[in-house]
């Protein structure tokens, strides 16, 4: 994003004073123009049209398109000597969706291998704070949940999938409790719920500020205590196909001993999560280290169709400073409680309670037009006026936002006395791999669940639906995939589809230098498997300073 000079941080900070009243600047443009001019999704220069594969002709974010149309990381020759391991179900990804799928598949009697890139549970799931949607209150119905989800997604969601998910909601909560997950309960032992922005009923179940952490540690423990074979530090680098082009397993890179393993499976479930670490348009992200969109690439190469490849959620309040915390999420609740956003001149510039995409666009506008606050070359943001909130509601931060205070502590800033510099952060991938109600993709034998899948949120997601989706569809896919274990085995398993890919790429004149999936973010300087040990300083590291 281009940044004109704003007010320097120290200057803005000394000029800042908490105040109990600040009028809202009259809105200049209407929201549609604002979005079109400043929301990253609408920026034509960042979009591309896909030329190769099942989504040819579709609009897609340029960075994602580059990866979807890049060469594979491996060749058939790389598999020489690679051991072959057989199983019924291979689950790729160790977040909430992957664990749910693996647990259910195992329980249904299938042999399961769960391979994950980092350690089991290093995921976006563990970071979720807000909660999980399920219509359980008297004032609510699954129908209302359905309507809210469609509306929020600008009516782009797949109705059949949404219906399946909302009906699963209450049973998902029960299943989680049966795994040993706690939820916040009232004095009678009933589930407490709260309302998410843009919804019509209290529907979000939660455990403190730690819903994802609680969910993940419970599911991880359940997986580790089962007969599921867990392979950590084993990212999937390519899928395997059989003679009919059905998915037949995957090639995993065992980082611990720098070797490839071929897992031949009756069915494969992709649960690799989101794309935050692609840092689309150079944005910081709230996502975990492994969120590099690998699953999209793997599925696409095998011929699976994807959707909404131009729609991503930028959360308005990511921390912009200090640098080591850049992109960290500040929960929406802080704004809901009445915290203002202020630009470099100390003015409010947007109704803070408007939808996420609008607020994010407004922040970007302030920064672009020189009304932001700059701290260093390239780092710009606006104030999150937490001292103002505290002034109007003494004690509220301590009471309701302990985690924010904690974040402040790590940042060396006391949010009750000093405003926080914030900037939109890349948060969620709205689309993904096309699936049906069983989580099956358009490629036989291949399933996809969780953030990597698409169709459930349309073009925008409401808070709490992601955690619901991962368990709802994780279980569905696990069950269905396990049932396929009695199918006849594959006759021939290999990487035929890569030749097709390379042919198409060459014919379309695409560059072949770039390899995908990316596995690790650029900042980690990971080029090949030997970099796992991190011993040698990188050739690629150009000294960018001076």
């Amino acid at each position, binding site marked *: 994003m281009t940044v004109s000079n704003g007010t320097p941080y120290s200057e803005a900070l000394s000029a800042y004073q908490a105040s109990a009243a600040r009028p809202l600047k009259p809105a200049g443009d209407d929201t549609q123009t604002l979005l079109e001019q400043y929301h990253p999704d609408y920026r034509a220069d960042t979009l591309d049209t896909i030329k190769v594969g099942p989504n040819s002709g579709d609009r897609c974010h340029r960075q994602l398109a580059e990866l979807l149309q890049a060469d594979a990381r491996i060749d058939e020759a790389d598999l020489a000597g690679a051991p072959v391991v057989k199983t019924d179900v291979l689950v790729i990804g160790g977040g909430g969706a992957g664990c749910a799928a693996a647990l259910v598949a195992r329980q249904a009697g299938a042999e399961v291998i769960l391979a994950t890139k980092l350690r089991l549970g290093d995921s976006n799931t563990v970071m979720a704070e807000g909660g999980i949607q399920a219509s359980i209150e008297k004032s609510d119905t699954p129908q209302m949940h359905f309507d809210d989800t469609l509306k929020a997604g600008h009516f782009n969601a797949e109705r059949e999938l949404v219906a399946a998910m909302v009906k699963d909601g209450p049973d998902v909560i029960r299943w989680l409790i049966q795994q040993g997950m706690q939820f916040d309960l009232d004095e009678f032992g009933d589930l407490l719920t709260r309302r998410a922005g843009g919804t019509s009923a209290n529907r979000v179940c939660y455990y403190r500020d730690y819903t994802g952490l609680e969910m993940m540690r419970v599911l991880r423990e359940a997986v580790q205590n089962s007969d599921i074979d867990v392979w950590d530090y084993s990212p999937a680098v390519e899928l395997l196909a059989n003679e009919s082009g059905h998915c037949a397993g995957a090639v995993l890179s065992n980082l611990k*001993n*720098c070797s490839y393993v071929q897992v031949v499976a009756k069915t494969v479930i992709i649960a690799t999560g989101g794309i935050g670490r692609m840092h689309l348009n150079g944005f910081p992200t709230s996502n975990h280290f492994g969120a590099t969109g690998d699953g999209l690439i793997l599925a696409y190469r095998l011929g699976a169709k994807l959707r909404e490849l131009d729609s991503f959620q930028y959360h308005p309040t990511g921390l912009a400073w200090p640098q080591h915390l850049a992109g960290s999420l500040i929960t929406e609740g802080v704004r809901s409680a009445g915290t203002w956003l202020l630009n470099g001149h100390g003015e409010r510039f947007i109704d803070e309670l408007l939808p996420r995409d609008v607020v994010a666009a407004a922040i970007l506008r302030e920064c672009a037009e020189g009304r932001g606050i700059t701290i260093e070359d390239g780092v710009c943001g606006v104030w999150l006026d937490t001292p103002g909130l505290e002034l109007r509601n003494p004690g509220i931060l301590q009471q309701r936002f302990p985690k924010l205070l904690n974040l402040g502590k790590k940042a060396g800033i006391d949010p009750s006395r000093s405003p926080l510099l914030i900037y939109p952060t890349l948060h969620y991938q709205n689309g993904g791999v096309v699936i049906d109600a069983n989580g099956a993709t358009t490629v036989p034998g291949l399933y996809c669940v969780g953030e990597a899948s698409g169709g459930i949120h349309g073009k925008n997601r409401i808070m709490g639906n992601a955690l619901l989706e991962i368990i709802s569809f994780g279980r569905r896919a696990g069950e269905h995939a396990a049932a396929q274990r009695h199918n006849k085995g594959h006759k021939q398993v290999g990487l035929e589809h890569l030749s097709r890919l390379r042919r198409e790429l060459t014919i379309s004149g695409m560059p072949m230098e770039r390899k995908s999936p990316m596995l690790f973010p650029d900042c980690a300087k990971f080029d090949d498997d030997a970099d796992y*040990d*991190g*011993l040698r300083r990188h050739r690629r590291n150009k000294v960018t300073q001076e």
Partner: protein
Amino acid sequence: MSQLNQVLLHESNRVGADLEAWFAAAGGQGLAKALAAPEAIIPLIREAGLRGLGGSGFPTYKKWGFVAAQSNSKEKYLICNGNEDEPGTFKDRILLQQAPHQVIEGATITALACGINHIIFYINPDQQKSIEAMREAVSQWQASEQIAAIEKVLGKTIEYRVLPSSGHYIGGEETAAIESVEGKFPFPRGKPPFPAESGVHGCPTLINNMETLSNVPHILRNGAEWFQGLGLGASTGTKIYCLTGDVLYPGAYELPMGTPLSTLINDYGGGMLLDKKLKAVFTGGPSNTLLTPKDLDVPLDYESVRERQSSLGTGAMIVISEGTGIVKRVSEYVSFFAHSSCGQCPPCKTGTHYAALLLSKIDTGQGSRADLDALENLCTILPGAGRCHMLDGALKVMESSLYHFRHEYEQALVL
């Protein structure tokens, strides 16, 4: 071979738990001298040059002096340390089983010198025979007429107690032993306060190794000059060396302090097994810097070994020949330490655990360069991070084996 077993392990002293036999073998004479002139004991010990033989080499008279000087406490404790749990060390159990009265008399003289009225024989519970022998010997003492004379000179009643330790290696550390005597888990305490001021139940407490105490009756009986004359060069007295590993005749050898390593190995140990070449010697705990073939000439006394950057420690000499993997040995010892860490200091527990994992990975042919790197980095970041010396000991073994035998580590790497 007349230099072998001149004093503590001399045939005539190894009479077992039989007080009469001990007195017949000239036992009791030292005690008699002590009773006659208790104030002369510490100066005599000083003149003789007796030092802590459990590993520290600290001048014994100084330690005693601190405790003796504590005049405001009526109760004083002596812990006779026989926790002996480290690999390759087995001298205390021989002394306790074969010459229990030697230790008891030594402890009694010590008590007279320092005004101590509680004597605790603190013994590794795995050494059942030692405990039995000591129990028997102690009851013989308590029934003897010596006690009245002792208590008269001391001016208070004297208590003897045999206490099995918890069996944790760490329980041999001074302050941990105190905790143990108090009935608690043997966690090493921070110093200060030093035990001499505040030990068992806050009372002045002296802690000496069994071997040190065993020397005391003989010094009293034969005088300081005699004791000095036993050692080679500037050293005094004898030392029981526990020789193990790839030699023909492993065993405990009491030899003049300062006997060269080569003499111990070749003349007493019968030379290297199968005539293999000597590769290294793990000394003491085994928690010290390794000795290598170029150190064969080193006189085994505290100063000389320290000059080679190592330490005599308990006197254990674990001899390794060509053909024995250094990595494997170090791996075994470090996992012993990882097991023994008491848990109080997370860097010690976690550090030794991590090191043990890395070593066993490398040793079993699964190690990568990163593992070796991590091992070296542990050696740089951890020293001094533990409350007692256990962590540093473990690091020293690792570090020196890395220094001398890096090629062996390198060869074992697969990635």
